[in-house]
């Protein structure tokens, strides 16, 4: 049984209740926060940075995406709601969720149920809420919206295992669930909450229209790269090549950038696709051996793994394939190790057919 932790209300005026909303940057959490805000509750947002968040930064790197908005969606949502937003870096603690999900993965490497428990749980949002004098937590969950985490059977698991218990309110589907403490205590009016369920987003779109929200983010599969099949494939490849399931933040950042080509198990190439990615990868030259073409314009390529001289030659031929000299007899490349020591070599560029399809991660 959760105890009431709120300070004693000594005045006659009802105490204004405070809720913290988990803001992902998507439509559902925006609406959930708005529904509660409309009832006179003071709402602030909390956004967790896992390292896998789908945000504008990927677009910001690439020149071809310059026209796309480079906004961070959670910040945009907070601004639309007129609420404060607290962004918390949980990327280090989150590794255990990705690597060892107690409740398993979804369709890809997405540990959605464990993720939600983790975000709401005592060590994260709920602890933060208690510490900062908030009365309850809001999430944008909708029953049946996601096959793994948002099922009627799993909703109580999240509430229970998170420690928030009946101080976890899901305004968009609350009427399908047992009344929570904020409803029972009359802090929020249950009649003004919703009974959304299922995968259709139509009710959400209608509610967004009612509130006057336009231009909200609709990332396919949610706001997490782990729901993306291609990204998950690259992460699985990384673990397979290393022979162990581990990653650093830089690893998962680099999975979002460039072509990833693995001609041999022991190493892979990360080949920039354009100037913006060149600039980004340049920031990693002190951590990786890099190749850039000297005789022709071309990409910056990083080598990840362990490699010998023959491997470097192979990598240089592949890198040359993506340069302006791809049809030349020879391309001159400069190979530089992470300490800054470099040498120059001439290589014949690999043909398109020779860069095997199965090398592309």
């Amino acid at each position, binding site marked *: 049984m959760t105890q009431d932790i709120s300070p004693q209300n000594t005045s006659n005026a009802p105490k204004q209740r405070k809720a913290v909303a988990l803001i992902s940057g998507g439509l559902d959490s925006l609406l959930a926060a708005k529904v509660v805000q409309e009832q006179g509750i003071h709402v602030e947002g909390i956004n967790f*940075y896992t390292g896998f968040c789908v945000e504008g930064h990927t677009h*910001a790197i690439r020149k071809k995406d310059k026209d796309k908005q*480079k906004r*961070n969606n959670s*910040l945009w949502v907070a601004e639309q709601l007129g609420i404060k*937003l607290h*962004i918390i870096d949980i990327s280090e603690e989150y590794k255990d969720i990705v690597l060892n999900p107690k409740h398993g993965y979804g369709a890809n490497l997405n540990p959605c149920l464990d993720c939600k428990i983790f975000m709401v749980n005592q060590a994260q949002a709920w602890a933060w809420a208690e510490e900062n004098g908030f009365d309850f937590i809001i999430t944008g969950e909708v029953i049946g919206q996601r096959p793994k985490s948002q099922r009627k059977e799993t909703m109580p698991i999240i509430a229970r295992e998170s420690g928030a218990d009946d101080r976890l309110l899901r305004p968009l589907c609350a009427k399908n669930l047992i009344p929570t403490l904020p409803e029972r205590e009359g802090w929020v009016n249950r009649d003004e909450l919703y009974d959304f369920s299922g995968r259709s987003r139509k009710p959400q779109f209608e509610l967004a229209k009612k509130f006057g929200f336009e231009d909200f983010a609709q990332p396919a599969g949610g706001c997490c790269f782990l729901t993306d099949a291609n990204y998950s494939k690259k992460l699985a490849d990384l673990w397979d090549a290393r022979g162990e399931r581990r990653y650093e933040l830089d690893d998962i950042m680099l999975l979002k950038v460039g072509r990833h080509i693995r001609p041999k198990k022991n190493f892979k190439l990360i080949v920039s696709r354009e100037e913006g990615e060149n600039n980004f990868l340049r920031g990693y030259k002190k951590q990786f051996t890099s190749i850039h073409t000297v005789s022709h314009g071309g990409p910056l390529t990083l080598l990840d793994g362990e490699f010998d001289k023959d491997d470097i030659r192979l990598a240089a031929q592949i890198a040359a394939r993506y340069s302006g000299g791809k049809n030349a007899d020879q391309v001159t490349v400069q190979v530089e190790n992470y300490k800054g020591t470099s040498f120059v070599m001439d290589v014949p560029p690999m043909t398109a057919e020779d860069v095997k399809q199965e090398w592309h991660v």
Partner: protein
Amino acid sequence: MSTNTLDCRNLLCPMPVIRTQNALKELQEGDTLEVTCTDPGTLSDIPTWCRINQHQVISTNEQNNEIVFVIKK
């Protein structure tokens, strides 16, 4: 009033925002923080974060792929 600096070069959003947020927490009202970033996404994110959390961006300078924000708490 103190002037402080924060290096967020080679960090991708939202890390520059998180570092800025955490650095400002340690400062007093009226103090300034100079933040240097390389992610073009910060051009939108840092001013937005400052607006919603009631801090003031005094100046934004972009030069040689670096963006320098001066923020007043």
